[in-house]
């Protein structure tokens, strides 16, 4: 009796021990990503804020509002890049979200299984293509097409960037929207049909509104991907050294390509300024994510209240 009790206690202790070890392993795994984020923030910010402090500091105001990037003459202005990045991202969202959403509706609600079996692998493949291939495609096809119609006689433009980014964010938008559409309970659709609504009415008046928080978070991720994309846009943006874009035919210089183009050879203040560009990009992504996550949270709550 006593012995049996002892064994039980030992077994329990062993179990506790195991629990603790596992807790530790989980904790370490979780810490890897948190520590990485902290390390990146500390590194980028310490490098990127350096040129604006101390002796011979560069004016942060000039940096953030400048319209010319000319490191050779110690001129570092990134406002036109910010505008370019934002316009490109907006354009990609305006073009990509409707196409992606309609594709998702088609796959989830309308298309017969056989067609889905063709469309879905194609989308998955699209998601797996490396961005440099998108860039090469953009340079070889989209830029050449735009060149034929552009009044500037050149294909590298805001429009080219928007087109490529829109294609690049499609898989994200489609996959996430589709799963949120599928998550809408069948009873919603049945109720809608029961009220005499047609299939299209049901989709746009019932299913899509019910799935809006998922669709919105798909858009968030799409924006994140679009604004952070580097390689593909660098190849097709034109990367002019100054001046605001004034039409979709204008060249732009996205923040990301500014960094990746010059980092390998830059040194001293020039390099710090590239890190400063990284800081701006970082803040951008932080703000966009926070705002839209709040937005999706709110919408999600409303949805559940209904």
């Amino acid at each position, binding site marked *: 009796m006593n012995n049996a009790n002892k064994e039980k206690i030992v077994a329990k202790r062993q179990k506790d021990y195991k629990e603790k070890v596992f807790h530790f*392993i989980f904790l370490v795994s979780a810490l890897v990503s948190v520590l990485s984020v902290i390390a990146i923030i500390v590194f980028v910010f310490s490098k990127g804020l350096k040129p604006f402090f101390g002796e011979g500091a560069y004016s942060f105001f000039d940096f953030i509002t400048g319209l010319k990037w000319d*490191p050779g003459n110690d001129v570092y202005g990134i406002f036109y890049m910010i505008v370019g990045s934002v316009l490109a991202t907006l354009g990609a969202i305006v073009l990509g979200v409707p196409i992606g959403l309609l594709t998702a509706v088609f796959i989830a609600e309308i298309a017969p299984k056989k067609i889905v079996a063709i469309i879905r692998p194609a989308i998955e493949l699209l998601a797996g293509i490396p961005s440099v291939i998108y860039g090469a495609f953009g340079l070889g096809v989209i*830029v050449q097409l735009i060149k034929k119609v552009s009044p500037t006689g050149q294909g590298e433009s805001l429009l080219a960037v928007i087109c490529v980014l829109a294609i690049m964010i499609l898989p994200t938008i489609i996959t996430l929207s589709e799963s949120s559409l599928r998550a809408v309970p069948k009873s919603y659709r049945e109720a809608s049909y029961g009220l005499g609504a047609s299939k299209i009415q049901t989709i746009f008046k019932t299913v899509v509104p019910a799935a809006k928080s998922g669709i919105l978070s798909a858009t968030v991720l799409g924006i994140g991907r679009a604004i952070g994309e580097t390689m593909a846009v660098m190849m097709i943006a*034109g990367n002019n050294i*100054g001046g605001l874009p004034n039409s979709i035919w204008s060249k732009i210089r996205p923040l990301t390509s500014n960094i990746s183009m010059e980092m*390998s050879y830059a040194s001293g203040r020039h390099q710090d300024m590239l890190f400063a560009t990284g800081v701006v990009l970082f803040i951008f992504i932080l703000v966009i994510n926070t705002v839209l996550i709040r937005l999706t949270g709110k919408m999600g709550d409303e949805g559940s209240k209904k």
Partner: protein
Amino acid sequence: MKKFFNMKKIIGFMLVATMMFGLSACGTKKAKVDEKVTDTREQTQTPEATQTPAETNTDAAALAGTVSITGSTSVEKILMDMISDFTAYNPDVTINYTGTGSSAGIADAMNGSNDIGASSRNLKSEETGLEQVEFAYDGIAVVLHPSNKVADLTMDQILKIYSGEITNWSEVGGKDAKIIVVSRESASGTRGAFEELTGLKDVGLVESATVVEGNGNVQATVAGNENAIGYVSFSFINDTVKAVTVDGVKATPENAKAGTYVLSRPFLLVYNKDTVTPEAKAFLDYVVTEDAQTFVEDHGGIRID
């Protein structure tokens, strides 16, 4: 119940094993890389010993000391590779390079505050009393789309095109079409040399210029647009683009070496014959060897031979 515990144990073991393996893999990988580095060193060292002239070798055995090089920043990449290669065989020699600009490097060599001055231009007539070793040439070709009928541009026209003063091909004898200016990223050595040689440095590149990364992208962009103009290192001239003659001179390594092709410059090391140290002399001898010249090619320069 017992089975469940076993499962847990197995999973736990696997998890730990994976983590350990991951950690140890990191370690071994690093060690392997290190090994590789030393390996290649040894491998390159062996043929080197047989290739270099015997006198350099005997010199090398006795060499010790510090050599300071100051001057041109354009030669930095080539020179740094040469220095690390040279010091690998002469471990007791330390070579310090500081990029101060050609003129400063030459001035330092004249007043004896460095051992060797590096220059990316020829000595001027007032810069006297120095010996020079040419170790490379830098040549930049101005390229157009093959269909462009413009075959020659003057330095002045090139400057005006890149500064935005000339915007239409008809102004330089071509068809009536807008010129698409293609340039390189601002930290590029080729761009630095191009802007210096054309004088663009003082006027500034036109804001609407397309900026692409790398010689290869310039070539591809120009090849893809019949109204584009770009500039590349000589090694990037091929069938897809057309190199124009500048002031009537063809862009060839021979013309660059002869100095008749204006978009070119020599890379020199200058020193004072009377005060040069044996270590510095050994390095000066080294830069023209076959081994050192491969670094010139690596960085898109023209070899001296």
